[in-house]
């Protein structure tokens, strides 16, 4: 496959996933806003990596400004509408590698959202809007899964999706790392834990796996080390490693630094212990993980996109 096409497919996977992740993050902030802990609007900015751009533009955090910045603002490349536009632009460049279902699903998402005005997503309309964003991305992922030829094109989309998801889970956890300190307990904390789990579609999963009341250490374990949860760090990184291996197998075993690094990260998660992670401080550990994930993204691009 053309390197440029692989690049577009990889970023197609990343941008669609990012749109849904921003929606998930905003949903958490909106839910917690009702509980009087207004700082969550700020946290979601940090989690999505949008804080510097936001502060430069708005200076002060208000719910409306955060929602506008993360949903509509064309100056924010990680905003939901920007993500759809970037995903579509990437898709357009590899139109031939996509199925009609994927393309028309994405094209329609873009057409639906691109002219969204504040009255479509501010205030009471926000949750419904965010649900639609998540639904459109689920539709796209489903179309990719159900209709795409199992070739390299499919694998690069999967690679982008899995890597972006790994990055997102680590960021969501990091935003709430102080709430996950062992021993903390209270109404506010409880609501926070629920919100974190919901943001990665894992509240039900928690109950199914642990069958116990919410506990910060278990939440961290679920989101970091449990392979059953599709958005856990270990699940996402295992998928990245698996996909990289499949690409390598299709090319007669051609491998590079990205394969080594991905394997190393996955092994550290697969065989890691929660007590070790918590011992040095969750925040420090997550900061390192986010850094290594970014490093992995760079290594993938270097090997398959620039080095081709």
């Amino acid at each position: 496959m053309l390197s440029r096409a692989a690049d577009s497919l990889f970023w197609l996977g990343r941008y669609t996933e990012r749109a849904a992740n921003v929606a998930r993050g905003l949903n958490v902030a909106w839910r917690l806003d009702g509980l009087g802990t207004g700082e969550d609007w700020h946290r979601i900015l940090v989690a999505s990596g949008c804080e510097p751009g936001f502060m430069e533009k708005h200076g002060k955090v208000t719910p409306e400004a955060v929602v506008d910045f993360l949903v509509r603002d064309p100056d924010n490349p990680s905003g939901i509408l920007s993500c759809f536009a970037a995903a579509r632009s990437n898709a357009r460049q590899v139109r031939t590698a996509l199925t009609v279902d994927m393309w028309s699903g994405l094209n329609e998402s873009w057409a639906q959202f691109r002219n969204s005005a504040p009255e479509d997503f501010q205030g009471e309309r926000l949750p419904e809007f965010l649900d639609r964003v998540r639904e459109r991305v689920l539709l796209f992922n489903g179309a990719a899964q159900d209709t795409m030829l199992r070739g390299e094109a499919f694998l690069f989309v999967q690679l982008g999706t899995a890597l972006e998801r790994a990055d997102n889970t680590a960021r969501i956890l990091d935003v709430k790392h102080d709430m996950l300190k062992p021993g903390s307990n209270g109404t506010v904390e409880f609501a926070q834990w629920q919100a974190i789990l919901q943001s990665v579609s894992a509240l039900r999963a928690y109950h199914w796996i642990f069958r116990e009341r919410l506990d910060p250490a278990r939440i961290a374990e679920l989101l970091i080390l449990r392979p059953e949860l599709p958005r856990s760090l270990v699940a996402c990184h295992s998928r990245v490693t698996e996909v990289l291996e499949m690409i390598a197998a299709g090319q007669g075993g051609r491998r590079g630094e990205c394969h080594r690094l991905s394997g190393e990260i996955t092994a550290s998660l697969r065989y890691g212990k929660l007590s070790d992670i918590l011992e040095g401080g969750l925040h420090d550990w997550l900061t390192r993980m986010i850094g290594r994930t970014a490093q992995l993204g760079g290594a993938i691009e270097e090997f398959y996109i620039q080095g081709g």
Partner: protein
Amino acid sequence: MGSAFNEMGEGPDHSAAYAEVARWLAATPPEELAAKRAEAEYLFRKVGITFAVYGEGGDPERLIPFDIIPRVLARAEWDRLAQGLSQRVRALNAFLADVYGAREILRAGRIPENLVLRNEQFRPEMEGFAPPGGVYTHIAGIDLVRTGPDDFYVLEDNCRTPSGVSYMLENREAMLRLFPRLFSRHRIAPVSRYPEELLETLKAAAPERAGPDPTVAILTPGHFNSAYYEHCFLADEMGVEVVEGADLCVENDVVHMRTTAGPRRVDVIYRRIDDDYLDPRAFRRDSMLGVPGLIAAYKAGNVALANAPGCGIADDKAIYPYVPDMIRFYLGEEPRLANVPTYLCERDEDRAYVLSHLDELVVKLAQGSGGYGMLIGPHATREQREDFAARIRANPSHYIAQPTLALSTVPTLCGDAVAPRHVDLRPFVLSTRDHVRIVPGGLTRVALREGSLVVNSSQGGGTKDTWVLDEEASSPGQSQSQSQSQSQGYISC
């Protein structure tokens, strides 16, 4: 233009080919047609068949308006056209081989030497070089107009990078979805094999060393190009890569594309980039779209380009009047398709005629396309005509003139009513060393504004599906697919 030939016929005297279409139009209420038109637009938007118009404000991604009423040609009409098209394109290819080779037609004095050798479209880089397979214009689009039952004229030849074939294919797909029953009442020659035929044509152009399964790629200027959708569509249908200049690199006169598995050799490039931008080392130095070293690789015989560089000399408007002579000269045959009578303003006699008949003529730039910079005499104001007269006197060789033809009309859905609108036809002609192939049909463009003769999409034109009808209507009773017998049993009991 009240005298224009209506292809469907007037009143009860419908042409045989349109009998079913006329019946369908008479039996279908206008609201239903309008609903189908809306459905068609939804289909096109959904698939994303758009073209880009920049610099006019508004949404740059436009749909070419699609008219749901098909344009119908009888098989006998088509066969005559196809013979004429094949003859014309064979002559054009022979002309290209000649002017870049022995120049016999110039030495014989049949075409003025200066008109060719001093033409901007003539590429000295191609002199003395024979492309693999000996073909120059592998894919040609010939624009035809009609003025009467048997009167077809070639309006212009497009020998460089003709576009529009994706509309021919997508229009048919849309019609099949919208009007399956109308199709079942006709026997319509399919167009869907075009991509296969194109791929075979391109493979046949490959250098010999590439073997039986050459690697083909489509070279596009990129997604800002107005025909980008078509480039991707064709690549998809043929199962080949669509590449941009930056995806290709040339090493030791061999062309490679950059892939995730490392460089891969390319044998045939179907390029949809103009000559000027193909290779900054050979043509325009400031081109960012092309591939440095591509022409050297081409001339070393390591890669084929379709169409060959330099084809523009064959479709130049100043050369056009000589195409009938080319046919006689190279093929020893009389032209089967007529040219529109053309006056070359650089000839004194012609210019005098043009200047005194501007109110009857269409004046065009000898080089240029897209319907910009033309004068349609009968529709122009006095000032416009005087302006053009001055321009012609200043630069006579830049202009040609033709009589305004009463282009034929086809019923078209305009607003809520069906009304006649002028059309042209662009069939696509594929050439290899031994074969000329034409998929029956082509792209019908329709001037949607009442009375307008300009069919270009950039000037408010639309498109139609073009049907070539085989003689006998098909029997409606195709064998039905099986269904569970119990449901049928319950109903009949």
